[in-house]
């Protein structure tokens, strides 16, 4: 049992003719919440997609626990115990909220088999999910879709949770709920890798931080140290937290 759940070593990714990632090294410590920061276009989303096998690394290794997952296909990677919330939310708009959740609950054959206690917990965090249970997901408001996307990722316990910008379009109150949710998940032992633009969010949750620029990780370390060092923030992100 290594102490990092997920590690990327020298990962290069090409999209078509474009070379996007130029040797990403990233370690996500087990049981912690790692923030991945960076300017627009730095390659954060690309990194997450490479981990999920939605794009494949042309060079380098991705390791999950002791297993090399670089060449695995997306479903196989997901089956290892990774949940993913993509940047575009990936809502199935023709299906109802319930059906969206049911698909995410791999263990359940039908709605009755879903874990009630866990659903209750989710409903508490994101009341809209319960309220619109039998509605087509496509009709939800922008923020409600975002809540559904996160709910789907946590409907069953997973070892690693990868989330791409969960807070966009959310009202402040819901952002607070989401922070609580990630906090509780972390306490229950889930490892989380989070991409975020919302600075407060990042500061309140992060244990460790990695900053990307131009397809590389240019800084990594503890969140506490990073928050304290305004100069570093200025030079890496172009703004102070």
């Amino acid at each position: 049992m290594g102490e990092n759940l997920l590690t990327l070593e020298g990962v290069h990714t090409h999209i078509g003719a474009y070379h996007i990632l130029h040797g990403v090294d990233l370690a996500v410590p087990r049981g912690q919440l790692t923030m991945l920061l960076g300017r627009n276009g730095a390659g954060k989303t690309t990194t997450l997609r490479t981990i999920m096998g939605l794009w494949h690394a042309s060079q380098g290794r991705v390791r999950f626990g002791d297993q090399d997952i670089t060449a695995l296909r997306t479903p196989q990677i997901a089956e290892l115990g990774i949940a993913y919330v993509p940047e575009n939310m990936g809502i199935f708009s023709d299906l109802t909220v319930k059906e969206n959740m049911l698909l995410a609950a791999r263990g359940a054959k039908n709605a009755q088999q879903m874990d009630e206690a866990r659903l209750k917990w989710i409903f508490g965090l994101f009341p809209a999910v319960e309220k619109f249970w039998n509605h087509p997901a496509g009709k939800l408001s922008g923020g409600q879709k975002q809540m559904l996307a996160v709910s789907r990722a946590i409907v069953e316990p997973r070892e690693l949770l990868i989330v791409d910008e969960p807070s966009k379009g959310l009202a402040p109150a819901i952002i607070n709920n989401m922070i609580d949710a990630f906090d509780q998940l972390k306490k229950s032992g889930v490892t989380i890798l989070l991409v975020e633009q919302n600075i407060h969010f990042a500061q309140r949750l992060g244990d460790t931080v990695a900053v990307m620029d131009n397809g590389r990780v240019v800084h990594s370390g503890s969140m506490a140290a990073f928050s304290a060092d305004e100069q570093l923030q200025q030079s890496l992100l172009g703004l102070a937290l």
Partner: protein
Amino acid sequence: MKTFDLDWKPLVLVPVLALVALPLTGSFSTWLTLTVAGLAMGMIIFIIASGLTLVFGLMDVLNFGHGVFIALGAFVASTVLGAMGDWTGSQSILHNLVAVFPAMLVAMLVAGAIGLAFERFIVRPVYGQHLKQILITMGGMIIGEELIKVIWGPGQLPLPLPDGLRGSLLVGDAAISKYRLLAVAVGIFVFGLLAWTLGRTKIGLLIRAGVQDREMVESLGYRIGQLFVGVFVVGSALAGLGGVMWGLFQQNLIPQMGAQVNVLIFIVIIIGGLGSTTGALIGALLVGLMTNYTGFLLPVATQFASIALMVAVLLWRPQGVYPVAGSR
């Protein structure tokens, strides 16, 4: 939390149509003959269309080549039945059925296997692109038809119904042909199996989700590629089965037979609401009845009856009787 609001209105369409026709046909026995024949015809149509509800309705693949699997199934069956002359020639229904079942099985296997290749080479590059699907599957259809001509010859091929399945049962003055009863049985079986698989398991949901966002379904840990192949193969196999039923019904086969039923089955699927098995069944029964009633009351209008029916249904429900996908 669980709500069950069954949409019953489309379900009564079939009995309503039958009742409306009753006074028009004049005699009860005539009405009975027409109605039973129409329902059974509807069942046959349902069987040949059922594969398409999966492929077109659920997977959103506009498969204009579906007909070729129907033809293929029928031609394979003619070869198999031809080899079992003793069984088909026998007067015993049991023997006949013993001959028909392997024919169905082989037809489904062959159609399914060809479906596998069809998915790989024809359909896979064009998932999500309707126009290209139309063209490339048309191309596949033409190729398939020509290959059938190469193998079985360009002409018409007889597919005689086994003797035991000929003729009718008489109910009073009304005649109900035996073969149609078999068709009803097979139709109910196919319907039950499909309704159960799609309604009680997650497969239906997965397919619909996969059509919208394949990557997301994979990210949830499902192997959507294999599922799609599987569904396509099942769809093709069902078309093969439909071909056997249709071929035995027609009793002669031509390579173009698949293309000839294309419009008919598209109509059925559209009335049904693209992807709903129940909808397709209702659509097929309505079309079956409608053709028989107009055929009796006003033969010239028969050709237009099912189209008029479709337009009427769409004016009532623009998405078909049971819309599966809301916004596609």
